[in-house]
């Protein structure tokens, strides 16, 4: 588990299964697999959009054909269009929007290639052909229950339910289509680049806090990044009280006797953060990595 994941787990309580994919350049990228809940929501949204589209096609078509042409041709034409729309909806959007459908876009998830290669049209075709068997077939079976003899329909139903429930039985939450196509669905929040805390502008002539190497050697990268997250939070009374607790604790641990006045807490922590990061990054340049306060320096 990387330091970044430990920090998220501590502060936000999120624990997502992470999967590593290797880009063609050989860089490992950590991706979070989308949760089953997100995927279900995305799918239900898509089915809703699809149904709305088909209803729209039928109503527009019916109005048009009732007035102009004979009914059976009209109906056929409409059902052909609806058939095409139903079968091409997912494929079209996943091709045009880099592995996203409208529902996936809303949920912030997308399809990527499992081994880090290119996401090919054939992979998208494969995963969407399977969709018919995974979802639309069980639906038809379910609707036609009772038409056939009990045992055979029960067996079919059991089989398809097992297939549909496949995402619950593997770590990457792949459905049958994903397995065949070699894809996974990942969650991808969009992040923004914030200002660097260590180079925050300071008023001229203002004295900052300074620390000795011994004081800075107490903490490691994990604590540094927790501190960074806390400092980046929006200023509220609650965050302020957390910060002053943190400040008091740091002072105790590194042996700073004089108390930090409340109005200087942020400034103290900011300076401590900058100095700590300077030292840890300096160490990293020479191959010394300190994970957290409990672990010794690790040579990399």
């Amino acid at each position: 588990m990387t330091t970044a994941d430990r920090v998220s787990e501590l502060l936000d309580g999120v624990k997502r299964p992470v999967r590593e994919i290797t880009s063609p350049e050989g860089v490992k990228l950590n991706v979070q697999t989308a949760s089953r809940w997100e995927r279900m929501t995305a799918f239900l949204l898509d089915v809703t959009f699809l149904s709305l589209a088909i209803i729209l096609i039928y109503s527009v078509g019916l109005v048009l054909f009732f007035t102009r042409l004979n009914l059976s041709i009209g109906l056929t034409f409409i059902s052909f269009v609806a058939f095409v729309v139903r079968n091409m909806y997912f494929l079209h959007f996943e091709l045009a929007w880099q592995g996203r459908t409208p529902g996936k876009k809303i949920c912030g998830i997308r399809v990527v290639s499992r081994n880090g290669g290119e996401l090919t049209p054939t992979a998208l075709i494969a995963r969407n052909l399977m969709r018919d068997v995974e979802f639309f077939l069980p639906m038809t079976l379910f609707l036609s229950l009772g038409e056939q003899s009990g045992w055979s329909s029960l067996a079919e139903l059991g089989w398809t339910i097992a297939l549909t429930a496949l995402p619950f039985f593997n770590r990457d939450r792949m459905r049958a289509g994903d397995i065949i196509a070699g894809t996974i669905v990942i969650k991808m929040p969009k992040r923004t680049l914030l200002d660097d805390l260590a180079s925050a502008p300071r008023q001229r002539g203002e004295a900052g806090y300074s620390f000795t190497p011994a004081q800075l050697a107490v903490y490691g990268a994990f604590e540094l990044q927790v501190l960074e997250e806390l400092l980046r939070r929006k200023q509220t009374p609650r965050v302020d009280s957390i910060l002053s607790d943190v400040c008091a604790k740091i002072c105790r641990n590194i042996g700073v006797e004089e108390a930090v006045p409340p109005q200087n807490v942020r400034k103290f922590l900011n300076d401590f953060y900058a100095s700590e990061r300077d030292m840890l990054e300096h160490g990293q340049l020479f191959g010394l990595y300190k994970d957290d306060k409990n672990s010794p320096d690790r040579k990399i």
Partner: protein
Amino acid sequence: MRYGAAQGGKSGELTLRSAEFRAAREDGWIKLDRMVTRVEDGGIGVLSASESEEITLLYRSAVSSLSVARNIALDRNMLLYLENLTLRAYLVVYGPRSGMSGSMAEFFRRGWPRAVRSVRRQLAVIALVFFVGAAAGFMIVRADVENFNLFVSERMSQGRGPDSTREELLGGEIFAPWKGFTEMFVVFANSLFRHNTMVGILCFGLGFMLGVPTIILIASNGASLGAFLALHSDKGLALDFICWLSIHGVTEIAALLLMGAAGLLVAQNIIFPGRLSRLESLARAGHSAAVAAIGCIAMFFIAGIIEGGFRQLIANTAGRLVFAAVTGLLWACYFIFAGGKRRDDSR
């Protein structure tokens, strides 16, 4: 040595190496970010030719920034941002490049015939299953015409059965009256297409269940074909029936068998993954299987039009036979020769 801001310096400011690193590259990241956002909102088409080239370069430099940053920087926000940006850019750069129409053209020119060639062994197996099913159906119904109902459901027989007379079969089926251009070409052809496509997709998808349902489906389709043949030969209409069926059946049955063969390829890679892991082998086979299968939808479309329209338009047995032979020959040539060199792999 002391770390901290109070030790002097120009304005009392601490300059970290990672901050310098960031300052030097930030502009490129932000430019890349903007481009990626545009593509995410509007599709790959929003980039001009020079921009598509530029985005690749910017992506490569972001990748190298990320690997450096992982080694020298501890700024969590920057690391996460860079990782996120690289991933987003990676998905644009290595995402699907062509839309629907571009993919289609390439597909029919090369991808599909190659994929079909790559499932030829499975196709042979599936064809065997189909013909064994057909032979079984034929023999059993031949022995006793009453067995016809075992193989053909009421919905499928539409009134045809052991009790049908020769005249009924000839007038109501083989040389059924022409109901008018639109009724046949549009309405009937369309419903046939939709039905057949769904059956075909099932044949393929059920390969995932180790191929057992695929084989059952193909065999039972074969059996009902055999049953029909036996019924007609009982009334002395064997040749007429074969021609009536094969005019579109060449295309339709070929497509059905291809779908089944693709399903079988999937099943084969689940059961015998070979040297690869099961998942890996499945992902590889899945590609050529899916390509082979999706093209069959086009075949079903053509078969639907032939069955719905041309079949009753060409109201004589010899004409139908010629038509069937020509379509069969065309398909064979296309699958054997289109798309360049013989290759086992569609990729």
